[in-house]
C-alpha cells in the first residue's frame, strides 16, 4: 500500500533526543504519510515512547532535542509558540498512551473529561461539548454512552477506559494519531476489539496512525508499513508484508524468530495409568465482599490432574480465577471447598507447620519478577532460603548450590551478590525460576512466566523452561493468558472462564478443534505473527 506520491503529514528529519549525556533517539528519519498506519516495533528501552512524545513536543522531564527536527505539514513543531503548540497537541496530532486507567483523571466523570478536551479546541458551551463527548463515545463503540459519560474512571473496565482515551484523542479532530502501546495489558479479546475500532475509526476519518508496539502480531494485522527500532535508531523501514516474509536486518530477523511459536513438545504424553502427581477436585475459592451478601466466586468447582513430568496449561483472561487456583494449590490461600491431593496425600486441610516439609516438592514461580523478590536481599540469600527445607548445609555447600542454580538458569555466578533492583526483568525472572528449583521439586506452578517481558527475553524464558522440563522430568502447572507460549510449553490445556474450566484437552486438540465457544473466541483474538489472520468477523464474535 505505497503512497509515496503524497507529501508526508509528519516528517522526522535526523531527530536526536537525549537525556543528560545519554542519547535515546539517534538520528531518526521518518515520514508518516496521509491515511497510512505505520507500526514502530522495538523492545523496552529502544526509544519508541520517546519518539512518539518528541513528535507531539512533550518530552519527559530532562529530555531535549539534540539535533534534527519534527515537521508537521512542513512546519517545524519547535517553532510554534506556546498557544499554537497547545492547539497543535490534540488538535492536529493526538497521543494515546499505555494503561488507560492511569490516563484518566480519577475524580472527574469521563464524559466531562472528553468535553474538557472538546472545549480546549473549539468554542462550545458546556452542554454542546458534553453532547459531542457522548457522540464520540458512541462512535468509538461504547454502548449506552449517555450513562457511561457519568461514570468515574474506576468504575470502568480496562477496555472501556482505553476507548475513553481514544475518544479524548479524537475530540480535537486531529489528523494524526500516535498510539503508544495503547492496548498493552488488556486481555487479548478486549485488545482485539479496541484495536479493531481504533483502526476502523482512523480509516473512516482518513487519519494517519503511528502505532508504537512491541507486538509483531499487531503490526502484521493492522499496519501498512513498519519500522524496527533498536537503541534509538530505526534499523529497518518497509512495507509490512515483504518485511515479515524476509526481514533485511539481522536484528529484525532475531525479533521475528523470537516471536514465533516453538515446535510442539517432543515427548509424547505417557498414556499409561500412572496415578497423577497432583490432583484437584472441585476446587472452590470464594471471597467475601464487604457490604455484599454475594461472595466473589473466583474459583468455582475446578477439577484437573497432572501426571509426573507433565505440563498442564491453565489458560484464561484476567479475572478468570487462574492465579487464585494456583495460589490455592500452593496453600497460599485456604480454599473454600474441594480437595487437593499431592502425591497421593490429601493436603487440603494441612496446617502451615505440617505442610511446610512438603513445600520442598511443590514450588512456585511468581508472576511479577520484581515484586516477588525481597528487594533488600541479595540473590545469594534469596536462593539459599528454600534450601533450609532440604537438610542442614554448611555455608560452603550452600554457596556451591547457589552457583549451580545460577548456572542452571544461565545466569553468571557473579550475580549472586546483586540485589533484585540491579537485575533486568529477564534476570529477575530467572532468579525466580532458580529459587523454585533450589529444593529440586517434582512440581512447579509457573504463574504467567512470560508476561510483561520483551520479545526476545520471553523467548529465552520459554526455551529455559522447555529445557528444564526435559532435563528434570518436572511436572508443572503453567498459568498464562499468552497462547503463543502455551503452544511451546504445555502438553495439555485447560481453559478457564469466570472461575470454571470450560474445556480441557491436549494442546493440539484445543488449538485445532476447540469446541467451547469461549475457547474459540480466545483463539480468534490471538494475533499471531506466523498464521493467516482470521477474518475480522470472527474477532468481533
Amino acid at each position, binding site marked *: 500500500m505505497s503512497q509515496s506520491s503524497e507529501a508526508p503529514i509528519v516528517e522526522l528529519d535526523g531527530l536526536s533526543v537525549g537525556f543528560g549525556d545519554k542519547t535515546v533517539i539517534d538520528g531518526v528519519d521518518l515520514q508518516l504519510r496521509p491515511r497510512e498506519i505505520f507500526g514502530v516495533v522495538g523492545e523496552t528501552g529502544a526509544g519508541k515512547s520517546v519518539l512518539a512524545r518528541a513528535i507531539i513536543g*512533550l518530552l519527559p522531564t530532562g529530555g531535549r532535542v539534540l539535533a534534527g527536527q519534527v515537521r508537521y505539514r512542513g512546519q517545524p513543531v519547535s517553532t510554534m509558540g506556546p498557544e499554537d503548540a497547545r492547539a497543535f497537541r490534540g488538535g492536529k496530532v*493526538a497521543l494515546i498512551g499505555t494503561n488507560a486507567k*492511569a490516563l484518566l483523571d480519577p475524580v472527574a466523570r469521563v464524559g466531562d473529561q472528553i468535553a474538557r*478536551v472538546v472545549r480546549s479546541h473549539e468554542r462550545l458551551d458546556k452542554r454542546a461539548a458534553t453532547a459531542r463527548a457522548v457522540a464520540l463515545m458512541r462512535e468509538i463503540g461504547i454502548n449506552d454512552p449517555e450513562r457511561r459519560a457519568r461514570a468515574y474512571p474506576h468504575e470502568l473496565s480496562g477496555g472501556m477506559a482505553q476507548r475513553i482515551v481514544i475518544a479524548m484523542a479524537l475530540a480535537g479532530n486531529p489528523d494524526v494519531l500516535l498510539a503508544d502501546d495503547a492496548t498493552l495489558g488488556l486481555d487479548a479479546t478486549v485488545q482485539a476489539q479496541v484495536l479493531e475500532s481504533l483502526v476502523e475509526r482512523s480509516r473512516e476519518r482518513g487519519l494517519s496512525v503511528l502505532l508504537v508496539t512491541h507486538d509483531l502480531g499487531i503490526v502484521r494485522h493492522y499496519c501498512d508499513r513498519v519500522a524496527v527500532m533498536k537503541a534509538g535508531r530505526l534499523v529497518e523501514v518497509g512495507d509490512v508484508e515483504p518485511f515479515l516474509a524476509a526481514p533485511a536486518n539481522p536484528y529484525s530477523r532475531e525479533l521475528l524468530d523470537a516471536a514465533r511459536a516453538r515446535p510442539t513438545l517432543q515427548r509424547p504424553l505417557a498414556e499409561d495409568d500412572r496415578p497423577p502427581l497432583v490432583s484437584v477436585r472441585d476446587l472452590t475459592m470464594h471471597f467475601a465482599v464487604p457490604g455484599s451478601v454475594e461472595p466473589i466466586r473466583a474459583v468455582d468447582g475446578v477439577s484437573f490432574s497432572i501426571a509426573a513430568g507433565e505440563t498442564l496449561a491453565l489458560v484464561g483472561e484476567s479475572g478468570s480465577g487462574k492465579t487464585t487456583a494456583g495460589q490455592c494449590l500452593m496453600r497460599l490461600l485456604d480454599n473454600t471447598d474441594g480437595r487437593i491431593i499431592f502425591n497421593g496425600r490429601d493436603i487440603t486441610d494441612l496446617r502451615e507447620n505440617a505442610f511446610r516439609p512438603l513445600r520442598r516438592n511443590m514450588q512456585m514461580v511468581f508472576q511479577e519478577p520484581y515484586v516477588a523478590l525481597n528487594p533488600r536481599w541479595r540473590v545469594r540469600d534469596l536462593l539459599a532460603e528454600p534450601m533450609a527445607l532440604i537438610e542442614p548445609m554448611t555455608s560452603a555447600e550452600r554457596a556451591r548450590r547457589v552457583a549451580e542454580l545460577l548456572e542452571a538458569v544461565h545466569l553468571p555466578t557473579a550475580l549472586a551478590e546483586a540485589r533484585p533492583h540491579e537485575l533486568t526483568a529477564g534476570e529477575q525472572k530467572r532468579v525466580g525460576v532458580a529459587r523454585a528449583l533450589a529444593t529440586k521439586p517434582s512440581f512447579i506452578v509457573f504463574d504467567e512466566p512470560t508476561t510483561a517481558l520483551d520479545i526476545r527475553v520471553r523467548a529465552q524464558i520459554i526455551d529455559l523452561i522447555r529445557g528444564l522440563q526435559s532435563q528434570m522430568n518436572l511436572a508443572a502447572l503453567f498459568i498464562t493468558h499468552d497462547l503463543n507460549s502455551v503452544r511451546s510449553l504445555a502438553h495439555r490445556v485447560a481453559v478457564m472462564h469466570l472461575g470454571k474450566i470450560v474445556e480441557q484437552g491436549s494442546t493440539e486438540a484445543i488449538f485445532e478443534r476447540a469446541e467451547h465457544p469461549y475457547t474459540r473466541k480466545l483463539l480468534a483474538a490471538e494475533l499471531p505473527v506466523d498464521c493467516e489472520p482470521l477474518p475480522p468477523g470472527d474477532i468481533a464474535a
Partner: protein
Amino acid sequence: MRVSPRQFWRRQPRLLRIIVTRIALIVPQMFGVTLIAFLLIRLLPGDPARLILGNFATDESIALYHQKLGLDKDVWTQFAIYLGNVLHGDLGTSPFTSKPILDDLADRAPATLELILFAVICTVGIGVTIAVTSVVKKGSAFDWGARAYGFAAGALPDFWVALLLVFFLYYMLGWAPAPFGRVDMMLTPPPTVTGFLTIDSLLAGDFEAFRSSAGRLILPILTITIVNAGAVTKMTQTVFAEIWAAPFVEQMRACGVPERQIIRAALRNSLPPIISVSSFILGFLLGAAVLVETIFSWGGLGQYAVQAVINSDYAALQGFVLVASAFILVVYSIADILYEVVDPRIRT
C-alpha cells in the same frame, strides 16, 4: 419483593450514607475519649483533696472531701458517676473560679476559636498557594525559596517567633498593637452575638472596635501562619508534585488542554489530603494555641488550661481535655466526611 436492610441502606444517597456512618462512629469514640480523660486524671498519682485543702488538712476533712467527690468509691463507679455528670452537661465546679467548668469553658471558647479558625484559613491558603506555585514553576528561584521555607518553618518554636514578632513589629517599629488581649481595653467590646469580636463589632457597626480586634489578631495569626504554613507547604508539595507528574496530567497536556485547567484538575485531585491536613492543623492548633495565647494574653481556652495546670485544678483540666478532644473529634469527623465526598473512589 422484600427489601433487606442492607439493600435499603445501599439505595440511600451516597452523601447521606457517608454522614450517617461518621455520626454513628462519634458515639463510641466520644465514650472512649471520656474514659481516657477520666483515667488520665484520676489514676495518676497525687490526691486532689490534699492539693485543694493543702498539706495541713486533717484526715477527717480529707475523707469528707473524698466523699464529696465520690473518691471513696471504686474506679468504675466513679467513672459511671463522671459519665452521668458529663452527659448532663456537668463537668464539675472549679475551686479556683468557683464557677461551673462548662460555663468557664464556654466563656473562653470563642476567643480561641476566633484565633485558630482565622489562623487555619491563612495557614492553609498560604501554604497551598506556595506549594502549587513551586511545583508548577519547578526549579525556579521561587521553588527553591518555597522548599527552604517548608523546611525551616518546621524548626521554628512558635513561642519564640511570637516574641520576635512582638520585639520587631511592636517594640522596634510600632506597627502592631501591644500583645495585651483581644481588643483595646479602652474600648467597650461589642455585644456578643457569635463571640467572635471581629464579626460582632461589624454586626454592631462599631468600626473602631473592629479595627482594634482585627489589629490584635494580626500578630498571633502571623505567628501561627509562619510556623505552620511550612508544614502545609511541604505536605501539599509532595502530594501535588506526585499528581502533577501523573500520567493523566500528561495526557491532558497531550490533548491540548490549557495549563490553567490542568492546574485546576490537579488541585481537585490533591483536595483529599489537603482536607486531612487542614483538619489536623486545626486540631493541633487548639493545643498549640496554649503558647500563643499565653504570650498575647488572649484569655482563651489555652490560658485557662495553663491556669488549671498551675493551680493543680484537675477538674478544670479534665474538663478542658474533654472539650478539646470532643472538638477535635468533630473536626476530624467533618474532615472524614468531606474527604469521602470529594473522592468518588471511596466505596461507601
